[in-house]
């Protein structure tokens, strides 16, 4: 017996369309949640739930979906940042700590090299000078660098803190629950602001960019790592095929959660492409805004300065 299949146009939103019309204009402006149409408040809710569900398997899924390449992207971001010891970093939507840990590793190794060079030149220090150096804590391994990880989702922060403990990161690291659209920090505080694979999930990107501008010190740098648009047509088709056919299946098999990963691939398609994001960053007041494509535009790093 042949199985009856119904082909149709719209996705689940068609099933939901009727009740929304009845709810009328009071519900607020229509936004996208993946390929569905929802209100601003609904979108925040749904995204919170997505990350609540995926938090525990977040890292495993990242490795599976990108075949480990996301690690390289994040390495490139931190190398581009090239932080020197003493830098104060705010990592927004930093959830499970990937950027924060890389930052700490980077400044530690820079610091180590600094100290080695210093020691070479100071082979003939007197005991008094050595004593004074220890007093001033000039040999601190992080050199006063600090990273604040801010995320709106409690579950993601929880996973991040556990990871930090497990991997042995404690110095120079703090975790704050907060919303990228309304950051709980004073103006002109941070040297660098990063948001890796997070800005796509923010409901009001313009507000997040304004907040980023506000909390950065003059001379501070904005860095955004995010999925972007592939212009090469052949690659684009392969990428779409992989995204829509394989990724939700991976989500179901590994995390038992098809829907969250369906949302993921849809939200990537809905996100503004490179030039449009660049314009938005410029609108927030940043200067020298530029972007670098990684893997033909699958991912892009946008950078801007507060001058």
């Amino acid at each position, binding site marked *: 017996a042949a199985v009856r299949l119904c082909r149709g146009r719209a*996705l689940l939103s068609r099933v939901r369309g009727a009740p929304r019309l009845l709810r009328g204009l009071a519900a607020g402006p229509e936004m996208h949640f993946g390929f569905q149409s929802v209100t601003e408040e609904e979108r925040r809710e749904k995204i919170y739930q997505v990350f609540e569900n995926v938090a525990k398997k977040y890292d495993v899924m990242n490795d599976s979906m990108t075949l480990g390449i996301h690690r390289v992207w994040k390495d490139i971001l931190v190398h581009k940042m090239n932080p020197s010891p003493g830098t104060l970093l705010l990592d927004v939507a930093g959830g499970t700590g990937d950027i924060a840990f890389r930052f700490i590793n980077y400044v530690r190794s820079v610091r180590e090299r600094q100290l080695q060079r210093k020691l070479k030149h100071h082979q003939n220090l007197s005991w008094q000078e050595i004593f004074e150096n220890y007093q001033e804590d000039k040999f601190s391994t992080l050199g006063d660098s600090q990273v604040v990880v801010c995320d709106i989702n409690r579950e993601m922060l929880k996973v991040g803190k556990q990871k930090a403990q497990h991997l042995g990161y404690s110095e120079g690291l703090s975790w704050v629950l907060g919303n990228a659209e309304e950051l709980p920090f004073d103006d002109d505080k941070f040297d660098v602001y990063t948001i890796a694979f997070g800005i796509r999930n923010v409901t009001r990107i313009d507000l997040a960019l304004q907040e980023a501008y506000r909390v950065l010190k003059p001379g501070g740098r904005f860095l955004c790592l995010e999925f972007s648009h592939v212009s090469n047509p052949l690659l684009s088709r392969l990428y779409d095929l992989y995204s829509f*056919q394989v990724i939700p299946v991976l989500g179901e098999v590994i995390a038992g959660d098809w829907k969250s990963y369906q949302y993921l691939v849809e939200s990537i398609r809905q996100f503004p492409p490179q030039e449009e994001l660049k314009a938005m960053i410029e609108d927030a007041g940043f200067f020298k805004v530029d972007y670098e494509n990684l893997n033909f535009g699958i991912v892009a790093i946008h950078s801007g300065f507060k001058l």
Partner: protein
Amino acid sequence: EEEEVEEEEVWHQLYPGHIPTSPLQKALLAAGSAVMALYDPYRHDMVAVLGETTGCLALPNLRDKMKHHPEGYRILQERPRIRLSTLDMARLRGLPDGSLGREYVRFLEVNKVSPDTRMPPKFVDDEELAYVIQRYREVHDLMHTLLGMPTNMLGEVVVKWFEAVQTGLPMCVLGAAFGPVRLSARKLQVLATELVPWAIRSGLNASCVLNVYYEQRWEQPVESLREEIGIFPPP
């Protein structure tokens, strides 16, 4: 930005919880769920997904068997569900020992299981077939009761052999074939020499177990029901 942006043809949602999938996705799901189910036996959801994605031949077969049987046909029409909210546990507990209802409740309590943990179907692209597989899942505990098998690995494998013969679902066949991999040698011997042959004989002899309206037979003694269906007494 509106929701009409689509990359490819999309299918309607046919029942609550339905996730429409392309043939490629089904193939990937079948392979992935098979591997994951073997790797992590606690992933019951993977066993469920495997059943749904590989059942495209067996499920219509089962549905037709039900359609052509008076009791099965009624089940398809009325769509009864076995859930804690629909079962009168107190009444069943009060039934005489040896009756289906009493033994079923005993089975649930002894093995500490509940009928509510059965996964609803997601990847079956036909709403009636989705009910058939749901019914199969909900009736699984009753199979345990009728076969007198516990919910440990050994018991589950025996029930899988029975179900494989009865339903022809590839998931049952795979479960029956690969399940024993994790059993000790002693258990394997009992399995191979006594339990599996009995399960197969019973499965072949018995009429379709999905054609029994269990909810209307709680008072019936288990032995009488076994005889009626054609299940041989357990060894």
